[in-house]
């Protein structure tokens, strides 16, 4: 004869006992009012738990997640954003330096009388000549090698950022696979 404990009653309720054990519990329940009461309460709880209602999320829940999925798909990744901003900043600074150099070269080569005695047309013509001379100077001999060096540096920096971005993307992909 098995001792009818709470554990046995739970197993009886779940149908986990052997036929012989189940018969013993059944006869035990028919002879003990206390045991019968305990079992009935357990059964009642078991049934009421199956009647449990689901809680509901807010009505816009699904749309909120789908919007996030869509916006993430089309959003530029953070790493890529930094890359684009840094390259754009570098190019802007480079243009400003070249522009400043050209302007200062024009001003220093132009005759001092500009704006005093000559007409506006002459001034424009002087400025154009100055610009052409400066550009010729810039893209010939040592000027060309300086510009070449700057662009090479730019390409190397871009390559570095691109390599880093690829590396991080690969790392993110492998992290996702471990979940």
């Amino acid at each position, binding site marked *: 004869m098995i001792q009818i404990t709470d554990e046995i009653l739970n197993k009886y309720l779940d149908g986990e006992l052997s036929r012989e054990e189940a018969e013993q519990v059944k006869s035990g329940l028919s002879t003990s009012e206390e045991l019968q*009461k305990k079992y009935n309460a357990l059964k*009642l709880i078991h049934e009421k738990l199956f009647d449990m*209602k689901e809680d509901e999320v807010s009505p816009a*829940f699904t749309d909120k997640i789908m919007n996030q999925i869509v916006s993430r798909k089309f959003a530029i990744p953070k790493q890529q954003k930094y890359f684009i901003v840094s390259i754009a900043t570098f190019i802007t600074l480079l243009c400003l330096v070249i522009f400043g150099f050209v302007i200062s070269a024009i001003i220093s080569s132009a005759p001092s009388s500009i704006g005093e005695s000559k007409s506006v047309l002459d001034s424009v013509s002087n400025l154009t000549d100055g610009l052409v001379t400066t550009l010729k100077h810039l893209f010939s001999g040592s000027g060309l090698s300086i510009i070449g060096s700057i662009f090479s540096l730019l390409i190397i920096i871009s390559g570095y950022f691109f390599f880093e971005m690829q590396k991080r993307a690969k790392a993110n992909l492998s992290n996702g696979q471990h*979940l």
Partner: protein
Amino acid sequence: MRNLSDQEIIDSVRKGNESDYSIIINRYKNKAFSMLKRMLKNEFDAEEVLQDCFLKAYNSLNSFKGEAKFSTWFYRIVYNSALTKLSSQKRKIETEMTSVEDHFDLESNYNADEIEKKDINELVHKIINKLPEKYSAIITMFYLNEMSIEEISEVMQITVSNVKVMLHRSRNSLRDLVLNSRLAEELI
């Protein structure tokens, strides 16, 4: 479309039909929310964590091999996220063994008068919210989500016998509470 299996929907999402993921969300959102709400004891946190779970699952869909059921895989994400949230709130997280050995006293949370005023359904609903996190998770997965003991053990990463011990303990506590109330005379 709504009768498709989880695996078929996932395959469709993987092929680029991302809008099909909304079927998965609608299929699991309320059940998972019920579990999170009972574990975290807070509706706002539960919804926030659930949102993260769906996004996490979406981002990891390619790593879902289909060896286990999608529901088991997803509830594992939900359960682990709830534990992470609880630990971030610096609440006590028990290890597998200590949680089984742990005792909780539901009766101290309820006085006799309060019990007598409620009907049994409301009482059961309220008491489940008072259970410790892991116990309420088991009750929700077993009764509401109708998952097998084996699936629950897979989700919680504990043994089948430990799941049974925790389930029986939860039921016994609820039963004792009902037995000690006047509701017992009316219902049993």
